[in-house]
């Protein structure tokens, strides 16, 4: 059964094959890898240039509440602060803080103790809120220049 034997031989581990074809095999893999990498760059560029993302309007209080209601339906939101760019929002729910922030054309939402949220360091016009979550280590909240810095100002003041 020569055909079966050929099928069953692990060609890349056979010493005679490696001696005869090893370099060619490595070269074939490198070529295939390089061509795949080029194809990826082309496809990702076409995907970006096509400009067909989800349409997401800048956040306002109502839309922020709607996102939180979708993500955390059992959370009762007391107050919401939306950032200057409409890309993030912070909500208070008892002792819990809820932070939502734009990721591409979608959102990510994380909870943290309210005391930690309001203590996030204010640097210039931005606040970086950190989470203990390797999937979403931080969110950025943009403050309006010269405006009220609540809720962060409550602590910073």
């Amino acid at each position, binding site marked *: 059964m020569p055909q*079966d034997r*050929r*099928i*069953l*031989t*692990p*060609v*890349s*581990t056979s010493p005679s094959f490696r001696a005869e074809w090893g370099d060619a*095999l490595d070269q074939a*893999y490198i070529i295939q*890898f390089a061509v*795949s*990498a080029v*194809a*990826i760059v082309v*496809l*990702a560029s*076409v*995907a*970006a240039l*096509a*400009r*067909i*993302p*989800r349409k997401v309007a800048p956040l306002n209080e109502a839309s922020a509440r709607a996102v939180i209601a*979708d993500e955390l*339906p*059992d959370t009762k939101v007391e107050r919401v602060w939306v950032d200057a760019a409409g890309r993030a929002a912070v909500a208070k729910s008892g002792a819990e803080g809820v932070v939502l*922030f734009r*990721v*591409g*054309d*979608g*959102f*990510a*939402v*994380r909870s943290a103790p309210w005391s930690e949220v309001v203590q996030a360091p204010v640097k210039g016009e931005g606040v970086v809120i950190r*989470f203990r*979550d*390797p*999937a*979403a*280590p*931080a*969110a950025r909240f943009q403050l309006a220049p010269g405006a009220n810095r609540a809720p962060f100002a409550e602590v910073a003041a």
Partner: protein
Amino acid sequence: MIDLPFDPIRTAIPLFIALVLLEIAAGKWFRAKVVYEGRDAWTSLLLGLGNTIQTALMLGIIATTMLWVYSHHIFEIRMTWWWAWVVLFFADDFIFYWVHRTSHERRIWWASHVNHHSSQHFNLTTALRQPLTQLVVGQWVPWLFLIWMGFPPAMIVIQNGVSLVYQFWIHTEAIKKMPRWFEAVMNTPSHHRVHHARNPRYLDANYAGILIIWDRMFGTFIEEREDDPVRYGIVKNLGGFNILRVAFHEWIGIFQDIARSPKHALGWLFGPPGWSPDGSRETSATIKAKWRARVKREAAAPIAAE
């Protein structure tokens, strides 16, 4: 490497590229329901490339193991027997169902598989968003049973490739429904949208590879509904596109949990995703239970008001 007379995946790569371009064109110019976000597509495609590196690195171990097992096979099965391909088609798809289901229900395998679900989009690049560690965590091992039974390793690799190629086209929103008979038997874009959903109703459903019959048989089938449009991604969506975080965030989470509480290591590894010793985190089961209770409450509310 096992010398294949036919490699379905390599053969299909030009088709993959053409179909992605076609899907983008359909979304751009023909108003098909197609959504692409540049960084998301880039991340998905890079993970696809990373998956091929993983395969290349693991190939020696896997091929050697397959051949060793085959040297102890029980029955003599030839690649030229047509019925052997029919049996393998069902056996391979059955194993895929259970491996896939385990990938969702046990955290160690979810840590690898989560990559494929972490996009908030559902398009053909999502199909290529493949895990970087599924071979490392041994998700190929169950197929050794078929080799031990007597199926030549090349047959297994080819059938696996056929299954993967089939599963490419079902990652799209552009196709709403297939004919009823097809939806009844085969995995389709509609069934697979449910599988990629993060809505509580749809969690942990439709694990099928090619045939949806396994989900129907084992109680994991859920139909897509127009009154509950699918939201894609994972229960807690990722906070960015950093490829290393996308690929390894769940592994980092597992290691952090074990470091914090080593006596619960087995639970952290083999419990369902979201498991914690004190029950303070949410699993799919608790999310679904809360959702059911909420639906029941809301349905009862008008009656109570009367």
